[in-house]
């Protein structure tokens, strides 16, 4: 039985402007722990821009205006007294192209978050790394070579290393920005399987341009178009009988 889950992250009328261009237009969306929310939409629909608001990655880009609220457990992450570093510890991100640090070993990569945030922990470093690597379904493959450079791993393994690196910080939310786009089908399948096991403990958001992946992996799907949230619904309903004609056009490939 599913228990009632407290909403972990909610956006209220979130808008993002790059100069004159409105990339995200008044989006209100809730993301819950225990489920995977997929965000789909054509190129330029604002889905990547949206997800990067959730861990304040836009802070590093000049000329970006963010309006509206993003609440993490009830607290606005753009509030005046909020430390962005603490947000990024609680909201982890995995990128499209696997990006482990090449000058660090596998072990160092997994623990690199600690070097950046000075997070305190009671566990030993080895323990943390082992747990994170196990949760990322990578431990068995690398346990004998934790000090080997990360560049020696395959693409799929590197991506799981990036996931382990994010998990080591024990985040509440996991943001996946097209995590399988650069991977072969088998690696993709392994990561989708991994996402399935991870969702019980995290709120996961996955941006994907692959609709079948969204259908396979998520419980809730949101469809973005030109910066607006057109429809958000249970995945199985959205893909069999969407409410909005625009959603129907996109998922059946009548778009453009």
């Amino acid at each position: 039985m599913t228990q009632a889950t407290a909403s972990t992250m909610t956006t209220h009328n979130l808008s993002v402007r790059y100069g004159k261009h409105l990339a995200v237009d008044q989006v209100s969306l809730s993301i819950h722990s225990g489920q995977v929310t997929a965000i789909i939409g054509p190129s330029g629909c604002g889905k990547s821009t949206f997800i990067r608001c959730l861990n304040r990655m836009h802070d590093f880009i000049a000329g970006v205006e963010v309006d509206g609220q993003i609440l993490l457990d009830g607290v606005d992450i753009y509030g005046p007294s909020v430390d962005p570093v603490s947000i990024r510890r609680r909201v982890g991100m995995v990128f499209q192209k696997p990006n482990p640090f090449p000058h660090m070993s596998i072990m160092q990569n997994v623990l690199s978050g600690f070097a950046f945030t000075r997070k305190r922990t009671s566990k030993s470093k080895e323990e943390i790394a082992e747990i994170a690597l196990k949760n990322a379904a990578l431990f068995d493959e690398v346990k004998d070579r934790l000090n080997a450079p990360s560049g020696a791993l395959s693409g799929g393994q590197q991506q799981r290393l990036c996931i382990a690196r994010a998990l080591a910080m024990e985040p509440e939310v996991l943001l996946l920005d097209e995590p399988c786009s650069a991977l072969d089908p088998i690696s993709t399948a392994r990561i989708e399987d991994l996402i399935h096991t991870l969702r019980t403990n995290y709120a996961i958001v996955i941006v994907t341009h692959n609709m079948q992946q969204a259908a396979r992996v998520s419980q809730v799907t949101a469809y973005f178009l030109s910066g607006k949230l057109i429809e958000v619904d249970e995945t199985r309903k959205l893909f069999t009988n969407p409410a909005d004609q625009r959603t129907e056009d996109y998922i059946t490939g009548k778009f453009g």
Partner: protein
Amino acid sequence: MIKNHTNRAFDNDLRILRDRILLIAGRVEKMVANAIKSLSENDTALAQKTIDYDKSIDSDEVIVDRMSIELLAQRQPVGQDLRFIVSVIKMVTYFERLGDLAIKICHRIIELNRLDRSHDAGDIADMAKSVQAMIRETLEAFLERDYEKALSVIMKDDAVDELHHLITKRLIAEMHAHKELVENYYHLLSIAKWLERMGDHCTNLAEIIIYMIKGQDVRHKRLAPTE
């Protein structure tokens, strides 16, 4: 489907599937029309022709099923496309059954015409006409994606059931009254039963068509006219 799929090969495949199911539907409609015609005109030859015609439909069913499954595997369709293909798979079964029933009726007509004909088949002809109209309306509902027409078919079934009930009562009474015509009336009873079943199949088809159009599953429910 006003807009076309960006992938035109997919559009083409869907069109081919649609044409094929329409072909099957058209054949079945013709068979039923012929059966009813040979009933009212005592035309044994037509009935025989209709029975022979049945051979081609079975292979069509196999082709439609194969095409549908291939499309599901190749295209992983969603939304309306998915509902369309799944509906086609289900509808083909009911069309096959309609065809079978038409054949059965033709066989009975041939039997009937061998006997001495002094029976009264008037109201059965009326029932047959109603069923024929239902089939026509079902096909139109599918062709035009018309929700109202599909609903209307479902509504009409009650009248057909009622007709069947009355005809059965009359025929049984006739059987008691004219024991020498029992065989005739027996055949007529069977024909009436099968016409009623045809009406039921039309209802099933209409329910599937409503699912295809609206995504609502209306089976085993009494429909309110506002839905």
